[in-house]
C-alpha cells in the first residue's frame, strides 16, 4: 500500500497551479458571473490542453482515462483557483456518455475530451451554466434528454454559477442502461465536486492565514489571538481529514466512500468559507474583495450533487 500521490501526480498539480495562477482566474470568474463567457471559454481550452477534460473519459473513447486520482488532483486545483463553469458537469456528462456508448458517445466524447465542447448535466431540476454550454443533458428515470437549450436562467446566490431548468429536446438514449450510467456519473460528480470543494477550502484558509498575519488590532497581529488561531486550526483539521477521504474515494470509487468524501469535503470547504468571512470581518463581506468568489462558491459546492444530509443518509443506511 502506498496511499500517497506519486511524483508525476504532484507535478501535474504544480503545473496546473502555475497555469491557473497566471490566468488571472478571479477576473475570469467575474466576467463569467456578468454573462461574458469569452474569457472562461478561453481558459477552458487551456485547461483542456492540460488533459483535464480527458481524465474521466476512457482511452478507447478519445480520453486519457479513466484516471480518477488524476481527476481529483486536477479538480482540487480548479477549486483552489475558483475556476468558473460546469467543470463537474462536463466530467460527469463524459462519464455518463462513455458508460452508455452508442451514438451520443460517438458524437460528444471527443469534443468534450479536447475541450472543444462544454457540456452540462442537470442535478435535480437545474442545470449549471447551461447557457454557456454546447450540450445540455438531462436524465429523468430511464431517459436521457439532450435539451433544446438552457431555459430561463434563475438568479442564484453565487452569480458565477447560473442555474436554469432545461426544456424539451431529443432523447438520444433510454432504458435501464441510462439509469445505471447516471448513477456512475453521479459518483464521478461527487468525487470531482468534493475535490473542488477541498481545493476551494485550502485556498480560503491560505488567504485567511495570510490576512491574520497582516491585520493588526489592539496593537498586534490578530493571528496571535487564540480565538483566531483555534478557529483556523479547526479549519485545517477539517480539510486535512477530508483530503484522505477524497483521495480514498478516487482509489476505491465505492459509493459509500464517494458519499463520505462529498459530505466531508463539502462541509470542510464551507467551514473554510465561514472562517474566512469571520476572520476577515467586514472587508470579507464585500463583493469587491476577490475572496467573495471563493466564499460564494463554497456553499454551492457543498450542496451540489448530494447535500451533506443526502450523503450521510446513504452512508448510514449502507
Amino acid at each position, binding site marked *: 500500500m502506498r*496511499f500517497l500521490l506519486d511524483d508525476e501526480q504532484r507535478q501535474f498539480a504544480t503545473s496546473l497551479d502555475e497555469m491557473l495562477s497566471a490566468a488571472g482566474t478571479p477576473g475570469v470568474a467575474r466576467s463569467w458571473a456578468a454573462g461574458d463567457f469569452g474569457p472562461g471559454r478561453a481558459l477552458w481550452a487551456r485547461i483542456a490542453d492540460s488533459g483535464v477534460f480527458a481524465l474521466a473519459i476512457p482511452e478507447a473513447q478519445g480520453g486519457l482515462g479513466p484516471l480518477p486520482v488524476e481527476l481529483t488532483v486536477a479538480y482540487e486545483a480548479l477549486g483552489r483557483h475558483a475556476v468558473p463553469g460546469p467543470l463537474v458537469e462536463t466530467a460527469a456528462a463524459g462519464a455518463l456518455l462513455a458508460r452508455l456508448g452508442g451514438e451520443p458517445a460517438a458524437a460528444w466524447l471527443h469534443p468534450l475530451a479536447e475541450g472543444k465542447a462544454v457540456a452540462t448535466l442537470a442535478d435535480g431540476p437545474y442545470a449549471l451554466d447551461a447557457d454557456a454550454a454546447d450540450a445540455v443533458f438531462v436524465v429523468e428515470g430511464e431517459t436521457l434528454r439532450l435539451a433544446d437549450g438552457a431555459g430561463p436562467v434563475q438568479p442564484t446566490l453565487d452569480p458565477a454559477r447560473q442555474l436554469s431548468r432545461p426544456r424539451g429536446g431529443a432523447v438520444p438514449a433510454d432504458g435501464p442502461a441510462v439509469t445505471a450510467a447516471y448513477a456512475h456519473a453521479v459518483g464521478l460528480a461527487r468525487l470531482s465536486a468534493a475535490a473542488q470543494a477541498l481545493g476551494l477550502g485550502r485556498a480560503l484558509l491560505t488567504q485567511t492565514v495570510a490576512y491574520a498575519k497582516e491585520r493588526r488590532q489592539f496593537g498586534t497581529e490578530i493571528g*496571535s489571538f487564540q480565538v*483566531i*488561531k483555534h478557529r483556523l*486550526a479547526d479549519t485545517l483539521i477539517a480539510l486535512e481529514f*477530508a483530503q484522505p477521504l477524497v483521495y480514498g474515494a478516487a482509489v476505491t470509487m465505492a459509493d459509500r466512500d464517494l458519499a463520505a468524501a462529498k459530505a466531508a469535503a463539502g462541509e470542510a470547504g464551507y467551514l473554510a468559507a465561514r472562517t474566512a468571512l469571520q476572520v476577515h470581518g467586514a472587508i470579507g463581506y464585500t463583493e469587491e474583495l476577490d475572496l467573495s468568489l471563493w466564499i460564494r462558491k463554497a456553499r454551492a459546492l457543498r450542496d451540489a450533487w448530494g447535500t451533506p444530509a443526502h450523503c450521510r443518509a446513504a452512508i448510514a*443506511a449502507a
Partner: protein
Amino acid sequence: MDLAFTAAEDAFRAEARAWLAAHVPATPLPSLETEAGFARHREWERTLHADRWSVVSWPAAYGGRAASLTEWLIFEEEYYAAGAPGRVGQNGISLLAPTLFAHGTDEQRARILPPMASGEVVWAQAWSEPGAGSDLAALRSTAVRTEGGWRLSGQKTWSSRAPFADRAFGLFRSDPEAAKEKPHRGLTYLMFPLDAEGVTVRPIGRLDGKPAFAEIFLDDVFVPDEDIIGEPGQGWRVAMSTAGNERGLTLRSPGRFMASAARLQSLWHEQGEPAEFRDRVADALIGARAYELFTHAAAARLAEGGELGAESSLNKVFWSELDIRLHETALDLLGPYGQLADGADDAPAHGAWAEGYTFSLAGPIYAGTNEIQRDIIAERLLGLPKGRR
C-alpha cells in the same frame, strides 16, 4: 496511489484474526481501572505475549514480530473488531518503549523491554505536577546527583494506573540554574520503581469513580545511573521526540474507532434506524474512515523517511473529539438505558458504552489538552505568530 494490502499482509491479518477468535475472552474482563480487573488484564498481556501478539511492531529479540506500520494497523483493526480487552501495558508500550528505542542503551532495552512485553512489569507515566499541567516545563520535582545515581524529590500527579503499576517514568529538574534561561532546560528523564523507599502512591478517584489515577510523592528516592534515558539535562528533548506517539496514531489506532463506529451503526439499525440520529451515525462512520485513510497516508510518508512532527496534533484533536461524539451518540440512542453503568443488571446487551463514554471525556485533556494542540497547529503548521496562551 493505492489502498491494496499485499498477500503477506493479508496472511498476517488472517493469522491475527484466527488467534484472536480463539483467545479473546467470551465475557468481557472486569474494568482494568480496578485492582481485580488490572490483575486480569495483566494475565491477558501474558496470553498475548506467549504467542507474540503483545508488541507486534517490536523486534523479535524483545518479544515482537518486527511488524511494519501497516501490519500493526491491521493487527489493531482486528484486535478492536474482535472486542479484545483494553491494554493495561499501553503507557509503557506506546510511550516509554519508543523513547527507549530512540534514546535508550542496548542494556536498557534488553533489561526493560521483555518484561514490559509480557506484562510482568507495567509502567505508569509521571509527567504532570500540581503546578505543571499544560505548561509541563514548569515542573519542579528535582533530581539531585548522588554517588552512583540520582535522588528524586517532589510530587507528580494524574498518573494513570499508578495505583496498580510497578514502575514509572518522568521528567525531573536536575539543573535549576539552566531553568533560569528557559524552563525546559536542565530537565532529566528518569525511571523509578513505584515500591521504592521514599515513594508514596495515593490513588485518586476519577470521574468514573475508579481509583485508577494517583498522585506520587517522592521523598529522596534513589535511582541508579542505569535508569536515566539520554543525557542529564536533555530530558525535554528526549521526551518531546516521542510525544507525537502519545498524540498520534500509535496511541490511538484507527481500528479502535472503526470498531466503535461499526458498533454504533449496528445499534442504530437495531433501534429501527431512528431518523433523528442518522446524521450523527453517519458522521461517526465518516470520521472513522477519515482517520483510517489519514493514517494510511501518514504511514506511507513515514515509510519514505518522512516525520510526523506537529502533524500529530491534528490527530490528537480529531480522534479525541470523534471519540466523544461517537459515544454521546450511542448514549443518546440508548435513551434511558444510556444512564446505566456497564455493570448494571439492566445495562443493554450491547454493553460497554458507558465506560467508553467516560473514558472518552478524558481524551481532549490528556497527552496535551486540545487547546494546546490547536496552538501547536496554528503556530507550527499555519505559521501564525506566538501569543499569550
